[in-house]
């Protein structure tokens, strides 16, 4: 099956033998973007979380055929050292990662959360951020999520147009 999709702003046209191949492996092994992680392959841990058309998706359980014609964002496309995404900025400020393996998934889930809800309460965070971190960095993560939301609100207030649109 021919799949056309945009990943981190780049167009790709791929010939995929099995259209049910998880998007995770297409991103990791075909496009060589290793930031999206394999943790369980059962949509249980969230390490593979990325965005499809702005929505958080667990890519180990997302057949690539559903991504046809869509925009995919991975941790590599979220931001970079020169221009970190508010979530990445907050993660740097709070020195969140330990082993770091699950962190891209958490950051993608958080980026989705603050794009829908730029002022999440602790309860909102508890409900939406349900990935698993074995190093248990949750304590700092919660602080970083509040900080990321704060940075996001500052960013939105600079560009009032975005407030109406909600998502960027």
């Amino acid at each position, binding site marked *: 099956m021919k799949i056309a999709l945009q990943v981190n702003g780049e167009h790709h046209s791929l010939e995929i033998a099995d259209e049910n191949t998880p998007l995770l492996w297409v991103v990791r092994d075909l496009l060589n973007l290793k930031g999206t992680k394999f943790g369980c392959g059962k949509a249980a841990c969230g390490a593979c979380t990325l965005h499809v058309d702005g929505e958080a998706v667990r890519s180990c359980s997302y057949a690539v055929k559903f991504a046809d014609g869509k925009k995919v964002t991975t941790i590599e496309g979220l931001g970079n050292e020169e221009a970190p995404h508010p979530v990445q900025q907050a993660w740097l400020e709070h020195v969140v990662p330990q082993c770091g*393996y699950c962190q891209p998934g958490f950051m993608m889930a958080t980026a989705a959360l603050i794009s829908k809800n730029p002022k999440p309460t602790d309860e909102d965070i508890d409900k939406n951020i349900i990935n698993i971190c074995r190093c248990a960095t949750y304590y700092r993560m919660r602080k970083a999520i509040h900080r990321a939301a704060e940075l996001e609100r500052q960013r939105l207030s600079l560009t009032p147009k975005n407030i109406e649109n909600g998502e960027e």
Partner: protein
Amino acid sequence: MAKNKISRRKFLVRGGLGTIGVLAVGTYLFRNPIRRQIAGALNTADTPYLGDTSTPVIWFEITEENIVILHSPKVEMGQGTFTGLAQMAAEELEIDMSQIEVVHAQSISGNVDSFATGGSTSISALWVPLRELAATMREMLLQKAAEKMEVEKSTLTISQGKVYSGSTEMSYAQIAEGVVEWEVPDTPKLKPVSQMKWVGKPVPRVDLADKVFGAPIFGMDATLPNMLYGSVVRSSKIGAVYKDADISKAENMPGVVKIVKEDDFVGVVAQSFTEAENAKNAIEVTWETTKNWQTQDIRSMLEVGKGTPFVIQKAGDVDDFLADDSTVESSYWSPIGAHAQIEPNGALAHVEKDKATIYMSTQVVKISRDEIANRLGLAKDQVNLVPTFLGGGFGRRLHTPNGIQAAVLSKAVGRPVKCFFSRKEEFQNDTFRPPTHHVLKAKLDNDGGIETFEHNVSSGDVAFGSPMVPGIAEPILGADLGAWRGGMVQYGAIPNYQAISWRVQLPFATSWWRSLGLLANTFAIESFMDELAVKAKKNPADFRLAHIQKDDRGERLANVIKKVVEVSGYKDELVNNRAMGFAASTDANTPCAQVVEVSIEHNEIKVHKVTCAMDPGLVVNLDQVKAQCEGAIIMGISASLFEKMEVEDGALTPTIYGPYQMAMMKHSPKEIDIILLQGADAPGAVGEPPLGPIGAAIANAVFRLTGQRIRRMPLQDHLQV
């Protein structure tokens, strides 16, 4: 090998490991600064650095940009070791943190640790040797600078990676350029802690940016040109031995390159991960199994009294102990625990004619390398084990047959092969935290003081059976030092006490799990101490303090207890439907005391706040020591409240997160207060000690809330509602 040709005083610059524009400086110690008896080391779990410090191996490189690259023989699995080592080295090298990078030492560099990365020993073990190495290299650079500048060495000054002589300056890179022979001076005197610039500061992690921007740093991320994907069939049944496999269906599956049948396993090599998995599932394996194990079988094997006993601690006279009616006795249990680290085990292997290169997440670089060399029939220096960042360690990567399997598959197809475990295989082929049974007995005197105390711990093996503790050492050691970690009585003022470790060999692999026996042993001992305090009608913290002996170790323990009481405002009563729970432990010479604030909401045990006072000695990185405490506390909450593996019909279960319940964001306390006392002038253990008190502290709080003394982990399962 070249090492025999190198003079004791001079050696040549070695190759730059294939990197370009790099000046590689190997250095070594003249004298081994750590001559401690191994037995003594094991006794305190104070493990010395066991790497080779007598031959030149690569520790430091200097790049043309004047960046020093430290080759670490310890691996980075989140514990922050790379950052601490960088701080320690920068101190003696007189460079800024921005001028140092840390990489994993590849085994071919010769900088290989014979022990492992584990047991909370990395920073403490390298505290002296690494600074001596750095100081030695600094002096070598100064000496060369003096020669190049044609001035006396003593007239030179040094700052931020540059050497100054009056108005002339040379960077380390300029000094090292073109040098092929180095003079090695006697080991210089080290800088006193009071003059240190980086040690003690909350320096950001050196791997922070890589981990925030998704850099491909883990074993799972390794790739090589022309790489294929492998998958190995693993049994879901305990004790199953591979006999044979019918590969006829799998052979013709899409993407399959080769099915590899060995004497001990069968694996697939395919074009993609999913194709390898699908083909693997089509292989029909004949397994030889013995018994259809159930949880009840394991529990009954484990009862104290059934294994082999070994007295690990004894003081005073406990002989009349059992005769007395007034003996208090309790029995505690802990379940099988899974590592559940998020990065599955795996490896990328490229086996060529006379050499092999293996990229993998491992805590035992040398053992992994040696096992692979053995299996391939290669010499050890023909195998280059390239350690990667670990997506979690926790003891899971001390046994690494996955490296061998990847190498065998690669050899069979003549191309690089990457293979790794599925999550189900991770859960079923883990080297589990062994389940434990504890029987505690005590007798109180007329004043409510403890007169006699006994702890029996029965556990599956932790250290025994691991490649790090050879079988020959077992009869010498007697008891499994991992199983009894945390199992000794830390209250030395009790007149009569003893601890007995009962060894049980379980039918599945058990091993190191962050903090080894500490979590379960402290859960049992400190819950029981609370029972005794309640019986004696004493404040639980004061009760502990009254039984601490007057020596250095005792003083440090007393200090953390007093500190945690003071900072938490500990009260032995309910406030706003919350109870405070207290517990303390000493692990690898690091005492730690915790107070938790707990309530029960919708029948769930909820931990709101944890105050933790710990004395790990000198703190190298304030921020990362706190991070380790925070993580260990929440991991301890997870294990104490929720986690358990069962044995059903011969298989370990569950096999996925969710059914294997772990703490998530919503279970994390909203307040964690860490207070670090520094009661020793060298760094001690950090990564594991704070896992000790948490389970008992929660159980002790639950007792105050409900009157229920829960003596079985996971606590949430056994809460009567």
